[in-house]
C-alpha cells in the first residue's frame, strides 16, 4: 500500500529540518573560524610601536628601519650604542616626552604646548645619538629629525619570539613561544599523569570489577566530568598548590606541575570512559580463546585486550590532551601565569587559553594586543582541530581494520 501523501510530506519536512540543523551547525563553525582569523590577521600588517607614537632619530643617523625586539633592548638600555643595531659608533641617548621639561622651560614650550613640536624638533636635531619616543601628533612637516619605521611583526617572530609583553612601550613584544610551550608542557604533563592512571581504571572497570563495584564507580567518574572547572581550580589552589610548595620547597606553588595535576584529574573521566568503552569491544570469544590456552587474566589483558583496543585507547589519550589544551579557568588559577620560557615543571607557566582569558578584557578592540590574542585563539583552534582530526582518522582506520 503506498504511503498517504501527507505522511510523505511530513517525512520530507523532518528531513529538511534535520538537514537545516546540520548546515546551521557547520555554518556556525565556519563563521567562528572566519571571525578568529579576520580579527587576528591584521596583526602582521601593523607596527609594533604603541598606537599614535613614533620613534624619531637625528637626521645624520643612517638607521631607517628597526626591529621591535631591538627597540625594547634599546629602551631597556641593554643596547647602548648605535653600532650594535647597524648604525654609526655613537652612544644611544633615550628621549621620552617628559624629558622636554628638563630642557625647555614651561614658558618656552608655551601655555598650550603650542611650541612643543618645534622644541622636539630642535632637541632631535641637536643630539646626534638621540632616539625619541613621542606622539605622532607633535611631528609636523617642518620636523628636522627623521622618523624611523619599525619593522612589522612577522609570523616567524610571532611564533618563535621568546618575549610576550603585549603592552610594553615603546614597542610591544609579541613572541608567543613561551605561551605555546607553556600550553604544551602543561598538557603533556597532564597526559603523562592521567593516561596511566586512566588506563588502569579503565582496565579495572572493563575487565576486573564486578557489576556491583562498577555501578558504584561509574557515577562517580561521571560526576567528576560534571564538576565546573572553577571548582577544580579552587581545589588546586587550596590543596595542590600549597602541597607542591611544601613538598618541593619552592617559593611559590603555582607551577606547571600544579596545572598538569589539575588537568590530569579533569581529563580522567574522558580517558576512562573512552578507554573503557573501547576495551569492552574486545570480543568475549577472543578473551576466552586466550584463557583456554592457559594464559592468565593479566596476560590476556595485555596480550589480547589492550592490542585489540589500542586505537580506542589512543583516541582516549588524544581526546584527553584535547581536554587539557583547551582548559582555561582551572589552569589560570593554579599555574602562576608567568609568560616566560618554561625550564622545569616547578616554574610558573602560562597557557594560551589562560592568556586569552586574562588579557582580552584589557586589550582595546582592534588594537595590536587584541589582534595578537585572536591569533593565539586561532592557534588554539588549529591545535584542537588537529587533535580531533587525528582521533577521527584513528577511529576510521580502526573500523576498516576490524571488518
Amino acid at each position: 500500500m503506498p504511503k498517504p501523501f501527507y505522511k510523505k510530506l511530513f517525512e520530507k519536512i523532518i528531513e529538511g529540518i534535520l538537514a537545516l540543523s546540520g548546515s546551521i551547525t557547520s555554518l556556525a563553525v565556519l563563521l567562528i573560524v572566519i571571525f578568529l582569523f579576520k580579527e587576528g590577521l591584521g596583526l602582521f600588517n601593523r607596527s609594533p610601536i604603541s598606537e599614535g607614537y613614533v620613534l624619531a632619530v637625528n637626521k645624520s643617523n643612517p638607521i631607517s628601519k628597526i626591529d621591535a625586539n631591538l627597540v625594547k633592548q634599546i629602551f631597556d638600555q641593554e643596547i647602548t650604542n648605535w653600532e650594535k643595531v647597524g648604525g654609526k659608533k655613537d652612544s644611544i641617548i633615550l628621549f621620552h616626552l617628559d624629558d622636554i621639561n628638563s630642557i625647555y622651560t614651561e614658558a618656552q614650550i608655551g601655555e598650550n604646548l603650542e611650541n612643543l613640536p618645534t622644541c622636539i624638533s630642535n632637541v632631535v636635531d641637536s643630539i646626534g645619538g638621540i632616539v625619541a619616543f613621542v606622539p605622532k601628533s607633535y611631528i609636523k612637516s617642518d620636523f628636522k629629525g627623521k622618523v624611523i619605521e619599525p619593522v612589522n611583526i612577522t609570523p616567524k617572530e610571532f611564533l618563535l619570539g621568546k618575549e610576550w609583553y603585549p603592552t610594553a612601550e615603546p614597542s610591544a613584544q609579541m613572541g608567543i613561544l613561551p605561551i605555546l610551550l607553556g600550553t604544551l608542557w602543561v598538557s603533556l604533563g597532564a597526559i603523562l599523569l592521567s593516561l596511566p592512571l586512566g588506563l588502569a581504571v579503565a582496565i579495572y572497570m572493563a575487565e576486573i570489577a564486578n557489576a556491583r563495584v562498577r555501578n558504584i564507580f561509574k557515577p562517580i567518574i561521571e560526576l567528576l566530568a560534571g564538576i565546573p572547572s572553577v571548582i577544580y581550580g579552587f581545589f588546586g589552589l587550596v590543596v595542590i598548590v600549597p602541597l607542591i610548595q611544601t613538598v618541593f620547597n619552592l617559593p611559590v606553588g603555582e607551577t606547571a606541575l600544579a596545572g598538569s595535576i589539575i588537568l590530569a584529574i579533569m581529563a580522567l573521566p574522558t580517558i576512562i570512559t573512552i578507554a573503557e568503552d573501547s576495551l569492552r569491544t574486545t570480543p568475549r570469544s577472543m578473551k576466552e580463546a586466550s584463557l583456554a590456552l592457559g594464559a592468565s587474566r593479566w596476560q590476556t589483558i595485555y596480550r589480547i585486550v589492550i592490542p585489540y583496543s589500542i586505537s580506542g585507547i589512543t583516541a582516549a589519550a588524544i581526546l584527553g590532551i584535547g581536554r587539557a589544551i583547551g582548559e582555561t579557568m582551572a589552569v589560570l588559577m593554579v599555574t602562576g601565569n608567568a609568560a616566560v620560557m618554561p625550564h622545569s615543571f616547578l616554574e610558573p607557566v602560562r597557557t594560551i587559553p589562560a592568556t586569552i582569558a586574562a588579557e582580552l578584557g584589557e586589550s582595546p578592540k582592534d588594537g595590536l594586543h587584541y589582534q595578537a590574542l585572536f591569533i593565539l585563539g586561532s592557534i588554539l583552534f588549529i591545535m584542537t582541530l588537529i587533535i580531533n582530526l587525528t582521533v577521527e582518522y584513528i577511529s576510521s582506520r580502526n573500523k576498516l581494520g576490524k571488518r
Partner: protein
Amino acid sequence: MAKIETLDANLFYGDFHALKNISMQMEENTVTALIGPSGCGKSTYLRLFNRMNDLIDSTRITGQILVDGEDIYRKNINVDELRIKVGMVFQKPNPFPKSIFENVAYGLRVNGEKNKSYIEDKVVQSLKQSALWNEVSDKLTKSAFELSGGQQQRLCIARALAISPSVILMDEPASALDPLSTAKIEELIHELKKEYTIVIVTHNMQQASRVSDYTAFFYLGELVEYGQTVEIFTKPKLKHTENYITGRFG
C-alpha cells in the same frame, strides 16, 4: 582409570539450575559426543572441564570433576595449568588478530616458552597435525583473518594442539562451516583420537554417529542416556532418546 570422571555435578546460573546431578566417565583416547536440543546444557557441561564457567559471575558448582583422577575444582588448583592439559576449540573460529604463526605460538609464549627453535618446530608440527600446513606454509606471517572460515577453525585446532594438551574440548566446531570444511574437521578428529581424548558438542546427529565412540544425550540439564554411539543410534534404551535421534523433536 577414566580420563575424565564426573561425579554428581550440578551447576547453577544464579537461581537457574542448568546441570542436574550429572555423573559419567570418559575413557582415554575416545571421542565422546554430547547431543541434545539447544539450551539443554551441553556447552555448560563441556566448559566445566576447563573451568570456563568460572568467567561467568554468579555460577555455582557442586559435585566433582576428575581429570586424570585429580579434582579440578579443589582449592589451590592451578587453573592455567589445567587449561594447558585440557584444550578447547570454540563454536565460531576465533583466531587472534595476529599472524598465523603467532596464533599458534600464542599458547607457548604465554606459558613461558622462550626457545625460538622449539616454538618454530611446535608451530609447524601443530599445523601439520591439524592438516593446515600445506595451505599456509608459505604465508605464516599473514594475518589469520585472511584464511577462510574452515581454515581458521583448523588454525584454532592447531593453536590448541601446540601446547600439548591431553584432552580437547570442541563446542560445535563445524557448525559455522561449509560441508567440505566440516568433512575435513571430522577427518581430523579421527586422526587426533589416537593421541587425545576428545569431547565434542554437536547438534548434527550424523556427525555424532560418524565421529564419536560414545554419545551422551542431554535434555533440560539432565543426562538422559549415555553409552556407545552404535548402541545409542541403533537401539537406544529410552523412547525419549530415540525420538530425538530420529528427529521427531528438538
